[in-house]
């Protein structure tokens, strides 16, 4: 499934991610998943929120003077069993898709792991994921 992800540019200073988290929290927006990738001087936080809250989250962050972008990413529900993730990744790789970055969030109460994938070819990757 294709979903939208919010990316926020963060200066590498203490508490920058906390500011974003607090901003969303104060406005009743729950982060379902996130990852921060960083270099020495800056980081980019990627955040997934509820589908019906994404526009509001985006505008809220933007109006607080953060550089924010919206990107389509692939959402994969991967069965909680050995080799399931390997199967999925092999299929993508066989189709010539390379993954720019990905992050997972396990949920022990569910039979699935949820994985966010940012491939170079989003449409094709999504198609392959659907066929799994």
């Amino acid at each position, binding site marked *: 499934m294709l979903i939208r992800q919010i*990316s926020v540019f963060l200066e590498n200073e203490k508490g920058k991610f906390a500011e974003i988290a607090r901003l969303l929290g104060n406005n009743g927006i729950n982060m379902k998943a996130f990852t921060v*990738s960083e270099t020495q001087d*800056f980081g980019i936080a990627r955040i997934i929120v509820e589908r019906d809250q994404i526009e509001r989250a985006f505008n809220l962050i933007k109006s607080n003077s953060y*550089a*924010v972008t919206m990107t389509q990413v692939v959402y994969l529900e991967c069965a909680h069993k050995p080799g399931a993730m390997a199967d999925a990744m092999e299929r993508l790789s066989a189709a010539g898709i390379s993954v*720019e970055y990905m992050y997972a969030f396990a949920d022990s109460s569910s039979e699935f792991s949820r994985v966010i994938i940012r491939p170079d070819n989003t449409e094709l990757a999504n198609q392959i994921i659907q066929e799994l």
Partner: protein
Amino acid sequence: MSRDEMRELQSEKLRKIVSHAYNNSSFYKKRFDEHGVRPEDIKSIDDIVKLPFTVKQDLRDNYPFGMMCVPMTNILRLHASSGTTGKPIVVGYTEKDLDNWSEAVARCLTAYGLGNDDMVQIAYGYGLFTGGLGAHDGVTKIGGTVIPTSSGNTQKQLQLMQDFGATAVACTPSYALYMAEEIRKQGLDINNFKLKVGIFGAEPWTEAMRKELEEKLHIKAFDIYGLTEISGPGVGGECECQNGTHLWEDLYYPEIIDPVTLQPVEPGQKGELVFTTLDKWGMPMIRYRTRDLTYLNYEKCECGRTAVRMGKILGRSDDMMIIRGVNVFPSQVESILLEFPEYEPYFLIEVDRINNTDTFDIQVEVKPEFYTDQVNEVVRLRQRLTARIQSVIGIQPNIKIVQPGTIERSTGKAKRAIDHRKFE
């Protein structure tokens, strides 16, 4: 005129004006005596380097008439420029000075292709400021028609410009942009105007502004350079080639010096522009330091003129910093940022000295539409800027990308560089 003939003329004029200044001004007499130079030491234009410099503070210290070299009865006009601090500076003109000044402006107008058939709307302020009356006298000199609107009241300006069929407008480039915007807002059609030339000066402007003005106003936009201390607008002007500002060097002799060592630089090198007025008698200026940074090109222009050309004003020598032994001007960083569509033109330079090495940090902002979810793209963008600055300035900066809106926006007075180093 060949360059040799020009030097001959400059030498002769320099001898005369130096002896006039020495003999008729206690200021110059004292300054020359302290410097150990006498008028008879000046034989040719090359000897100009023996003379002491004059700076803006000298004009303030001698407020109002202490630098006049003729009796006040021979002064026909006074102009003044306020400046941001302290007393204004005052300049006085004899009849000959006014005539030379209007001749200089007239040469600019001719270089822009204007003549006695043209009608020039002068939207520079009339008054103590040299812009209005200076341009006015120049237009009169070439036999053109003056529309002396002065600045302000834009609606009326535009109405007269259209109804009279002005063929040229003289004003600051930023006011011209404002007029272009008003034309659009008021729903006027630029095709109903007869404008063909814009005469823009009194503030620095960029090639991007030139392009915008030429497109919006259907004109060719020309630079007119000048400063009150030297006489006003018209010290130099561009020609149809728009490739450097010709300086009228039989009237205003230019030099480029290193602002630190005060020594002349090699021809073509960047440095601080210095002028000596070779034919100004009321208040001659000997080696006046303009603080403007630029370079001179002595090659003959494609227009056929041999008069030396001045490059773009690159900044002010007051802003210069020496970082790791290299002269750095904030304006260099600004012009590099303007080359990149991804960056905002705002920046803040911070310099410090850590472990005996100068640090050179530059805060910049990426335009919101160029942000991405990918770290590598931002890293690459930063590397491109780092490499460009290193190749232009000669030292590697540490580029720090900050969040949108972090850097102070107010132009002009905005602090663009902070030097944390302590030199004691």
